[in-house]
């Protein structure tokens, strides 16, 4: 089996602060991979560099064996991206956004229209298809963003915090679509800090902390005998005593 994503010593600094300090991320093709880590671990920076949205200061990244920065045509045709916190074209309606995206990639209009219709249907967005994206809720934005990322049938999908701020119903729709997608042999990589979700969905886990990969492998390998949450806390050094010192005033109301 080849690797869908492979990076070597990926490195990025902002001013004096090192955000990503030599990351060797590996994701086998066809896996549903979770990239987990505390806030500020460098997940978003890493994903941005692999998808060609941010120029690394050092190291290299390959998608399906193609170098991200030397072979952008091949790479960009193969990846779908849903970044976190970045905007969609807000003054287009959901349907127009999908049409724009597909046609920008050179897919014929009739084909895009058909795909967009099906995606809107699956995402449960048909009723809102002709409303402007600027009026969408967070869950609807994530869904239309995912639809746009899937439109050109990529082989690797990068999702940055796809479930952040999404209600359970929309989250369920998202996971259904993603499961179908990986079931057909494509790869999904998503970042999250919700361990339950990663444990439930992923078969491959990469743990990041302070700009490094601290553990990487199949879910069973990384987790071992513990729950993923415990394994994660052990790995990133999150548990620190029982926090009894201080805060004595908190709670304990006299009746």
């Amino acid at each position, binding site marked *: 089996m080849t690797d869908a994503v492979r990076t070597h010593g990926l490195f990025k600094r902002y001013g004096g602060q090192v955000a990503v300090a030599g990351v060797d991320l590996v994701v086998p093709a066809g896996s549903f991979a979770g990239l987990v880590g505390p806030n500020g671990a460098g997940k978003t920076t890493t994903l941005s560099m692999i998808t060609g*949205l941010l120029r690394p200061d050092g190291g290299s990244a390959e998608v399906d064996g193609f170098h991200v920065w030397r072979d*952008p045509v091949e790479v960009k045709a193969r990846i779908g991206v849903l970044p976190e916190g970045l905007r969609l*074209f807000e003054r287009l309606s959901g349907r127009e956004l999908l049409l724009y995206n597909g046609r920008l990639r050179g897919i014929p209009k009739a084909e895009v229209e058909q795909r967009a219709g099906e995606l809107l249907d699956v995402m449960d967005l048909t009723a*809102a298809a*002709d409303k402007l994206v600027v009026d969408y809720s967070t869950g609807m934005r994530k869904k239309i963003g995912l639809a746009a990322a899937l439109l050109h049938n990529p082989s690797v999908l990068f999702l940055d915090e796809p479930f952040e701020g999404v209600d359970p119903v929309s989250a369920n729709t998202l996971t259904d679509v993603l499961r179908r997608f990986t079931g057909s042999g494509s790869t999904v990589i998503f970042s999250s800090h919700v361990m339950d979700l990663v444990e439930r969905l992923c078969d491959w886990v990469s743990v990041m902390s302070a700009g490094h990969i601290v553990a990487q492998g199949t879910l069973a390998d990384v987790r071992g005998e513990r729950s993923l949450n415990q394994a994660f806390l052990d790995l990133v050094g999150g548990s620190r005593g029982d926090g009894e010192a201080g805060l004595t005033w908190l709670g304990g109301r006299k009746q």
Partner: protein
Amino acid sequence: MSTVLLFAQLKIRLLAGNLRGDLQRKLGFIFTLLIAAGLAVLGFFLMSLLRLAPADIAASLVTVAFTLFLVSWMIVPLMAFGLDDTLDPARLSLFPLRTRRMAVGMFTASVTGVWPVAMLVVTFGALVGLAGGVGGFLLGIPAVLLQFALCVVTSRLITTALSGALRSRRGRDLLAVAVLLVVVLAQLPNLLMNRGFADPAAELHRIAAVLRWTPPGMAAHAIADGGPAGLADLAVLAGVVALLGWLWIKALGRALVTPDSSTQGTASVRKGRGLVDRFLPDGPLAAVVTKELKYIRREPRFRVSWASAVFVTLVLSFSLGGRGDGDAVAALPVFLASIGAVMIALQSANTFGIDGRSLWMNAVAFGSERDLRTDLAGRHLANAVIAVPLLAVIAVASGLFAGQPELIVPGVLAGWGALGVGLGVGSVTSVILPYSLPERMNAFSGAAPGQGGQALAASMGAMAGIALLALPILLPMALGLVWVCVVAPFYGLLAEVLGRRLAANIGFARMPELLAAVSKAS
């Protein structure tokens, strides 16, 4: 009293916190401080100089000035809403504050600041300039304070009453377009001046006579009068301030319990007709043109910049050609069409700025330089679809208007040429000097904090580039070789193609940097 102190401190903390660690903002603040102090001193000085003017003229001038102060207090905070944290009552709604305390606090917060203090100083200048006798000074002090309170309370009432609407998308869109209205209104006196008054003093008295019975007029009259009539003026004025204050407290109470409607409300349904789309071959180019045309129609920042381009051209045509037939500027159609074209093309001098944080969608799709070139071509085409007929209209209208019909055709051709040159230069500045536009348009800033210099350099660079490249056509035309205009559209097209190629070449190599530059938070 403790409330007053607390809120004053809060406001000062907020101002200080805004400046921490950011040299550019610190310099900006010092600059603002200097300007405000300068204006305060100058205003005070000018107002007190009125002492030397005849009493009736002084009184009329102060009446007009007080009214203008009030109007600007009503408008300016609306345009700058969101610049000041203490102005939004929703932020305080979770604290256990009684409405009355809160009103006192919000009042304090809004008078704590550089501009309110400057305003107060200027208003006191009127006291020096206008007050006659002891009575005038005795009544003048409360009159000045009441006038100041009137400005503050009115402005608070308006922002509070509208704060719900201002937080919704639709309200903000509307406001962005309203900025334009303010610009138009600001031009009105100028246009009137151009028509010429017969007698400025009589005109002034006529305006002042109307304004005499408005609250600011009463304040001015009270200072000038200093007798029983002034006392009556003050009583009415105090009543008005109290009423507005009461309304404000009511509005505040209501704003606190009304839910934040920014994510609710009925979303509008849009279905594009895509007329242009039908004439273009299917593909990325058609996609970009369709999207751009929709954006021009729906994005308030686009609407404002197009409307102001047309508006500036109109104002120019009035001031250059409108004083009878005799002295209209020579070659008016050529001049106006070229200026209009440059104004329109300058919108494209930071063409990725309006995409802002959504530009990544293009960046992940563009695998080669050719894709970026197509994108630029689509943007230019969308621009030209509107600009080409518009420039023709400008040239025809100004030709007929100025009585120079023989210059209509050269005007049209020169305008088209200038448009092409402008778009070509603009695409290069777009990739060399990109900057983020603020999400919300306000009248004071054209770029995200810290990128003002970049924005200035970009528009200066674009203008210099356009001027330089337009010389080979404009110079012969100015020397009388009008036939040169025949080449202008082709020359413009050439400039556009070369500029676009150069821009795509530079831009594709630095796509990540471009993306970062237009995605700055504002």
